[in-house]
């Protein structure tokens, strides 16, 4: 087998393994991978303020809790502060009591939606999109899992 084919085969295998690992990284906090809390213990991580900066008047933002956050009721504290340099307002929220990853994911998603509604008037949708035949492969299924979790994951 030519060297280029061997290298390509090795690349394919590594790629599949890498995608599986990336899916895991959406759930595991590891140092240096850009996730929200790399070295915090779970309790500290859960208590951190999670914030988005919204290009809007802080006073206007303080006047009413943005709709996507109202569903949490009294379970979350909300803080609005002016952002430096005319960047608008910092909208932050955190749970009053310890919660799990699912609740934190919901809060991340709600903060992002709140920012989008205020800045653009709607929440960006990307489904359904035109696509061709979806072959069932381990790499594809790993990616489907990442995409499903993506709005609720990340550094927020």
């Amino acid at each position, binding site marked *: 087998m030519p060297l280029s084919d061997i*290298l*390509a085969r*090795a*690349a*394919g295998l*590594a*790629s599949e393994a*890498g*995608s599986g690992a*990336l899916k895991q*990284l*959406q759930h595991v906090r590891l140092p240096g*991978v*850009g*996730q929200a809390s790399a070295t915090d213990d779970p309790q500290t991580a859960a208590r951190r303020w999670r914030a*988005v*900066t919204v*290009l809007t008047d802080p006073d206007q933002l303080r006047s009413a809790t943005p709709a996507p956050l109202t569903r949490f009721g009294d379970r979350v504290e909300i803080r609005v502060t002016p952002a430096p340099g005319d*960047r*608008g307002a910092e909208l932050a929220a955190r749970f009053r009591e310890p919660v799990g990853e699912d609740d934190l994911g919901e809060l*991340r998603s709600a903060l*992002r939606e709140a*920012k*989008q509604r205020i*800045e*653009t*008037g*709607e929440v*960006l*949708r*990307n*489904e*359904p*999109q*035109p*696509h*061709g*035949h*979806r*072959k069932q*492969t381990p*790499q*594809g299924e790993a*990616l*489907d899992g*990442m*995409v499903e*979790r*993506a*709005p*609720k*994951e*990340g*550094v*927020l």
Partner: protein
Amino acid sequence: MKAATWTGVNEVSVEEVPEPQLLNDHDVILKVTQSVTCGSDLHLLGGYIPFMRAGDVLGHEFIGEIVEVGSAVRHRKVGDRVVGAPFAACGNCWYCEQEQYSLCDNGNANPGITEGLWGQSPGGCLGYSHAMGGYAGSHAEYIRVPYADVGTFVVPEGISDTRALFASDAASTGWMGADLAGTEPGDVVAVWGAGGVGQMAARAAMLLGAEQVVVVDRFAERLQQVREHVGAETIDYSSTDVLAELRERTGGRGPDVCIEAVGMEAHSSGAAGVYDQVKQQLRLQTDRPTALREAVMACRKGGSIFTLGVFAAMVDKFPLGALMNKGITLRGAQVHAQRYIPELLERMERGELTTEHLATHVLPLSEAPRGYQMFKDKEDGCVRAVFTPGG
């Protein structure tokens, strides 16, 4: 409708797919007239950016006619002939207000992936993987364009489709590199890569007042295009010592501005090229930064470098010591096309910026697999393959 899709590593197919729908009030649906291959697509094709799903529609550089308009669209109407920006940008966040449209906070519906990779999420790019938003691309009969008031531009009557097409990405990316690298009148500018983006970066540098512009590549037909259509000097790196040649042509100083328009699959005729190929294929590094390394070593003390080529993650043996000790400024960005397209269309209308020569191969969409193969292998002097979904 027919669309060109990614179906596996180095596999492109033409499939029947559903037509796009208006999903947000700011959307339009475009009937695509022309859509063109981009060098950055090759990173997707080759599996170097492992966020493609079989069946994803490719393409992000396009022109077409609006056929459907969302209820919140104010400045576009059915029948408008428009060129589209590759990145979805809301126009209302702080980044958009700074005209850094490809960094839009509200353009990527999958921010968790890119935040995990890069610490922050840039905007979303049409037809450019699920990491960049999962949007269907433009190699199709129709495409949905989000935030259409911001991301589409009406093309003046006097400009042909093929000329305007390249305002979408190649020309706007090239212009951004020359502009944000700080090109000033009298500068010497070197550009690595004589593809569409590199040629447009060289032309932009000239129009911004650079006194000498040199483009580096190894493909004779591309270097010939640079001399004939752009009017810049060339260096063939396969037969010339680039660093020595640049020193000789610049009085020993090196270029004031270096623009890297190659990206993560750079080639090299030397041992460094073999080293990078092996490490990338074994996934011990994700990107081959060969041209960028050379730019760092070539750049004059205190000069600037702009990387336009797409990089995904990690590189190896990067000469950070040279960068720091020579006082070099290094910048990079995905294209802020919305910032540059209006000016580019004006320059195209005046004839200052011509792009038709880049479209070396114009093919029906049904021949997209062959078009990508020619583009990837640089067959028959292919610089860009343009698809015409309408026939």
